């Protein structure tokens, strides 16, 4: 720590930190553009100029750029100095030479950093009187709108896209005042992190194209803290609503999880909430042959009451995409012994095993932030870009950690981005990727290893053995894999904080064991290694923590035990089980009750269907891949008869007259019951204040204090302003009245911040007012708590279930699952933009196998697996290991098949009735 003087006032600050970071962290407003808290300084825009003085006698001083000036003992600067103030205003005047005066029609207006900075510098009058420069815009695909005329050339976009997100198809072009940021030609941006350009851009060059289709000003959006439902990482989000429609999703900073960024699947995956396929009314059918009819909710409930009353037994099938509370409510309704996991049988086993590993192994699970800051990484099995994209982002940053030693040796500060990158050049820290086929992270990898799932597991076991000889060794490992395992082991041993990333996507338990062994082996030699497991869905861990039975057990009970009714919670079972098994299951159950938000094949099987709320219309808790329980809140009250699932389930319980404590009527009561029954879930109660929480006696408003049109938005129905909806479940209100945060003086707890806003800071850059320090934790602690805490550091036994070497089979290929960022996940296909980017069905085969099977480029294949036959176009891919084939799973046209599995692959017989050649 050193003492510096800002406008004569002493401050204790970190030595070497740049002055802009320091000023913002100290709450001193200083305008900036090219600097970004996650991307450091480049000194290009010259906006953050301050006056630096030699000593206390120096009255002249000289202008320096705060972002490029490190703090040293005794440093004296002035932010208020008239010359600095004048210069900062002149920078804005310059930027405004060409910036169009289109704020009133610009999507960024009202949350524009350039607007904020213009006001901050006091620039009001322009001297420049010529035509503005104009550019041609590009079509960048379904997510990003491009409006280059607004560009102020801060270079943040290209720095993020290429330097941080690893994209290649976007760059800066031309020079002088016609510098252009875009692609060589029009086209969809390839990076899965392109949506961050919207937030990285300080003005309206890159704006959210999906938002544009139903645009609303930021101050007219009703927002609430939320959590992404599109993968298991649980990135924090801020969804915004207007007129009963979810309008967009923005990043919500969480130091431990997603930091400043989101992936495109999470950012743009919200549109299913507005889908035409939403179930909005209760539906029932009198018998299995009858058509569905929409009914009043009470009638649906009455029907359920009749069904469940006469039934001997009711089983419940939970959901890995429903909240912990809804799953628990179902578990309570049907009884723990009749509560089954709605995950696939394999996922159920794998996640249960993952929980065991996390509980038994004396290692901390890594948070995303810890992955990002680890200096060596081994990925076993996961194609993170497609399965858990933000983990790919984190790994991409992690390779920059170890080479930081090079720039640090040269006394280059880590925040000095250009210089640090120049010193490091293309040197990267260790990152080993063992996957089925190539991934979009390969360009960062020290080495890649493409093999069958069991060979990936065997490599992992070998690495563990190389680190610690007490770890079991795979037999008959080929020499290449052995050499690679030695190399990986050495790099992990040499690291300060190595991380092993693995997960469930290859559906191979031994990969989890291998990853666990590597972490254990590293821990046994004193390395603080961490384990990061990606899981199938947003609440996979939360579901399995409730200890449900497996789907197969549910089927068996249905077959054998005379089950009368099944309640299926937010789950399309056709995505999770063999269709033949499901048909038999539905046939054997006299009454099927489904709660869901989107129409799907399972909903079509329902005898009674209840409209369930989506994440945006619910309160709930999701448990992410590192067991971090995170609360999301209702963004808006659903219309029609839609209700949160736990509310429906409670209503069913009430209708049945179940013995229940009165407290169960509320969300808080439900959580209290849950913690009472499953005490290890206690953190769920602590992650956010209970509904009775008030600040200065007031609730926290979901609507900004500038929310407009409240009195008129219902005028087409009635001129009388209706009472706003009440929210008995949380300390948030559906109103603009209430506690007005004035960060950093007073603000709600981090879990209850509906949006980041501070006076003078209307853009997302206002975050600095909510953080303890720029890019540090949120004041008062980041939201979310881990449920599984690291046990006592004692050595658990190594796993020794090492699979046999992979042996190819004559006439068959091992079909392994591949994933597509858009398409493999259930909800993404209900978003038009993401659906548009879904890849076509295909079977990827190694060229040598193709040759052996006499398959050529254009062939359609018949694939027989698990008593099903599919027709899939052939795609020859050199990175698929011989003897295996890759199949993109989860695509809507594909029936579920449990993978990996051996399949027979033959060319589709040529249709005999071909057209005559004439």
């Amino acid at each position, binding site marked *: 720590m050193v003492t510096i003087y800002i406008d004569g006032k002493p401050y204790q600050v970190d030595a070497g930190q740049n002055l802009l970071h320091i000023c913002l962290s100290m709450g001193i407003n200083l305008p900036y553009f090219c600097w970004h808290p996650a991307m450091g300084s480049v000194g290009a825009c010259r906006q953050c100029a301050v006056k630096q003085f030699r000593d206390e006698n120096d009255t002249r001083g000289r202008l320096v750029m705060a972002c490029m000036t490190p703090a040293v003992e005794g440093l004296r600067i002035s932010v208020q100095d008239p010359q600095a103030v004048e210069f900062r205003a002149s920078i804005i005047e310059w930027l405004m030479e060409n910036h169009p005066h289109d704020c009133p029609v610009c999507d960024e207006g009202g949350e524009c950093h350039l607007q904020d900075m213009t006001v901050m510098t006091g620039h009001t009058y322009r001297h420049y009187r010529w035509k503005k420069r104009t550019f041609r815009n590009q079509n960048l695909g379904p997510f990003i709108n491009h409006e280059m005329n607004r560009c102020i050339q801060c270079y943040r976009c290209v720095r993020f896209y290429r330097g941080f997100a690893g994209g290649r198809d976007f760059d800066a072009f031309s020079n002088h005042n*016609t510098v252009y940021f875009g692609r060589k030609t029009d086209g969809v941006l390839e990076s899965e992190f392109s949506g961050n350009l919207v937030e990285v851009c300080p003005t309206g060059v890159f704006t959210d194209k999906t938002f544009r289709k139903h645009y609303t000003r930021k101050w007219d959006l009703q927002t609430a803290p939320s959590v992404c439902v599109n993968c298991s990482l649980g990135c924090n989000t801020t969804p915004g609503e207007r007129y009963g429609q979810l309008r967009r999703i923005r990043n919500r900073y969480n130091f431990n999880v997603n930091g400043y960024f989101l992936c495109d699947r999470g950012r743009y995956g919200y549109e299913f909430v507005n889908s035409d396929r939403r179930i909005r009314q209760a539906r029932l059918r009198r018998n299995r042959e009858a058509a569905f009819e929409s009914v009043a909710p009470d009638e649906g409930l009455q029907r359920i009451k009749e069904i469940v009353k006469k039934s001997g037994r009711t089983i419940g099938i939970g959901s890995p995409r429903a909240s912990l509370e809804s799953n628990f409510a179902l578990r309570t309704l049907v009884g723990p012994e009749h509560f089954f996991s709605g995950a696939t049988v394999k996922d159920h086993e794998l996640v249960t095993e993952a929980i065991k590993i996390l509980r038994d192994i004396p290692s901390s699970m890594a948070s995303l932030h810890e992955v990002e800051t680890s200096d060596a990484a081994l990925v076993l099995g996961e194609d993170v870009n497609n399965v858990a994209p933000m983990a790919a982002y984190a790994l991409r940053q992690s390779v920059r950690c170890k080479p930081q030693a090079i720039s640090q040796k040269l006394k280059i500060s880590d925040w000095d981005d250009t210089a640090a990158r120049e010193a490091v050049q293309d040197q990267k820290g260790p990152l080993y990727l063992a996957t089925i086929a190539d991934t979009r992270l390969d360009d960062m990898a020290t080495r890649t290893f493409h093999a069958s799932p069991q060979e990936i597991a065997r490599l992992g076991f070998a690495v563990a053995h190389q680190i610690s000889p007490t770890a079991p060794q795979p037999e008959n490992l080929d020499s290449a894999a052995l050499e690679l395992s030695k190399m990986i082991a050495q790099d992990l041993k040499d690291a300060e904080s190595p991380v092993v990333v693995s997960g469930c996507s290859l559906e191979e338990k031994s990969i989890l064991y291998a990853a666990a062994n590597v972490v254990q082996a590293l821990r046994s030699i004193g390395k603080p290694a961490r384990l990061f497991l990606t899981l199938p869905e947003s609440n996979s861990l939360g579901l399995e923590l409730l200890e449900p039975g497996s789907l197969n057990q549910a089927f068996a009970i249905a077959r054998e035990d005379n089950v009368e009714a099944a309640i299926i919670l937010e789950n399309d079972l056709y995505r999770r089980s063999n269709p033949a098994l499901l048909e038999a299951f539905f046939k054997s159950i006299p009454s099927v009750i489904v709660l869901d938000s989107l129409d799907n094949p399972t909903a079509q099987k329902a005898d009674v269907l209840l409209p369930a709320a989506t994440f945006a219309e619910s309160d709930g808790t999701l448990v992410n891949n590192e067991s971090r329980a995170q609360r999301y809140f209702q963004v808006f009250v659903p219309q029609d008869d839609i209700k949160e699932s736990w509310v429906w389930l409670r209503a069913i319980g009430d209708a049945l007259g179940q013995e229940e404590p009165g407290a169960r009527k509320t969300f808080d009561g439900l959580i209290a019951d849950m913690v009472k029954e499953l005490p290890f879930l206690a953190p769920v109660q602590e992650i956010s204040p209970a509904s009775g929480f008030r600040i200065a006696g007031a609730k926290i408003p979901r609507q900004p204090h500038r929310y407009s049109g409240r009195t008129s938005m219902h005028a087409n129905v009635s001129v009388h302003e209706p009472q706003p909806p009440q929210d008995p479940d949380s300390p948030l209100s559906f109103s603009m009245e209430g506690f007005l945060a004035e960060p950093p003086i007073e603000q709600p707890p981090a879990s209850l911040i509906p949006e980041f806003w501070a006076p003078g800071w209307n853009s997302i850059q206002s975050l600095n007012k909510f953080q303890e320090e720029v890019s540090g934790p949120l004041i008062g602690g980041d939201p979310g708590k881990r449920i599984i805490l690291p046990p006592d550091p004692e050595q658990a036994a190594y796993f020794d279930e090492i699979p046999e070497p992979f042996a190819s089979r004559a006439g068959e290929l091992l079909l392994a699952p591949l994933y597509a960022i858009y398409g493999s996940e259930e909800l993404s296909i209900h978003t038009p933009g993401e659906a548009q980017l879904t890849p076509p069905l295909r079977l990827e085969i190694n060229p040598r196998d193709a040759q052996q099977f006499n398959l050529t480029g254009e062939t359609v294949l018949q694939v027989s697996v698990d008593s099903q036959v599919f027709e899939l176009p052939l795609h020859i891919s050199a990175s698929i290991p011989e003897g295996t084939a890759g199949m993109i799973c989860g695509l809507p046209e594909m029936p579920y098949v449990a993978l990996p599995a051996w399949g027979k692959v033959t060319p589709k017989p040529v249709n005999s009735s071909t057209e005559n050649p004439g």
Partner: protein
Amino acid sequence: MNKYILLRHRDIPNLKDLQIYQENGGFAAFRKIVTGLTPDQVMQEVKASGLRGRGGAGFPTGVKWSFLPTNLWPHYVVANADESEPGTFKDREILEENPYQFLEGLAIASYAVQANTSYVYLRGEFDPLAAGLDRCIAAMEAAGLLGDNLFGTSYSLRLHTHLGAGAYVCGEETALLESLEGRRGLPRLRPPFPAVVGLYGKPTVINNVETLTNLPPILENGATWYRTIGTEKSPGPKVFCLSGRVKQPGNYEMPLGTTFRKLIYEYGGGILDDRPIKAIMPAGASSALIPATEAVLDTPMDYEAVAQVGSPLGSASVIILDDTVRMDWLANKTAHFFSHESCGKCTPCREGTYWMAHLTDRIAAGKAEAQDVELLHDVTSQIQGKCFCALGEFSIMAVRSGIELFRADFDARAKRVES
């Protein structure tokens, strides 16, 4: 005979033939140092000679070399052949007619800092020159003057040429490095300096073509000999590029410290039509205007004396302006040049030069309002001292000094609107 030290081809025909170059003592210095001197001895000799960088800044060459850390390897030497300053054409003549002396100088510099790979970075328009240099490099390799284990020692050296895309800013050494690494030519912030973090992140010396061309004679004849030429603080010969309103424009090699008068009236044959001289730009478009008073004409052209009369000597591209030249017109020309050549990285230069170009357009066209001259001056004040690199800083020199010294020229154009 043997009047020239740098432009020796003017004495010796066909000096761009390797055999003729060698017959006239070529590569003796390089052979001598590689086989007989330590790198440190070479560095000391060059330091003792007082050779200063000819690219514009005039920084002592030997001192620049000594900044390279000896615990970071490899080292690189880059010859800056991005001669882009308007009014500068000296490097071109050397590269065209006396290429081996330059390449020998580059080889000597490489040996002095123990670089095994060195580059010649040429502006894109120098395409034919690069082809010529490539042929020279091939000839040197064939003659055993480049390659592994030179002259039986353990020292190895390879040279490469690299063409830029013709951006002025790439003459700035950090932008040059960016361009050489295959990126857009944008300057880097210093520190770190290229001597520590340079090409590919490694310690790098960047020397001007003319600077390097000085090395063979220095190493051959010694520092003491070299110091007999020029002045105490600015020793050695210099090629002055004379252009503008003179009768005989061209390159003139003279000792540093020769007066403007001698250059203009003796070598340059005086002003066109024998009109009165108005001002001098000693450093091309980047220089401030110096009113051509008698005292100025008698000023010796060395780094210190020229700076004292109002502008750096720079690369000694002396542009002569006579009384027919309107300074508002000149300001307009330079403003357009810099607004076109701005790389677009920092705001003051990118937007400021553009604004200057517009303002000077209007003034030069006689459509300006009275306050526009003041506004132009304000804009230059806001640019001055606040840009990322020297290009932005230089962009205002002619405009600002033009307004300050020849205000009448500007006001005359601006006032017309009011009448």
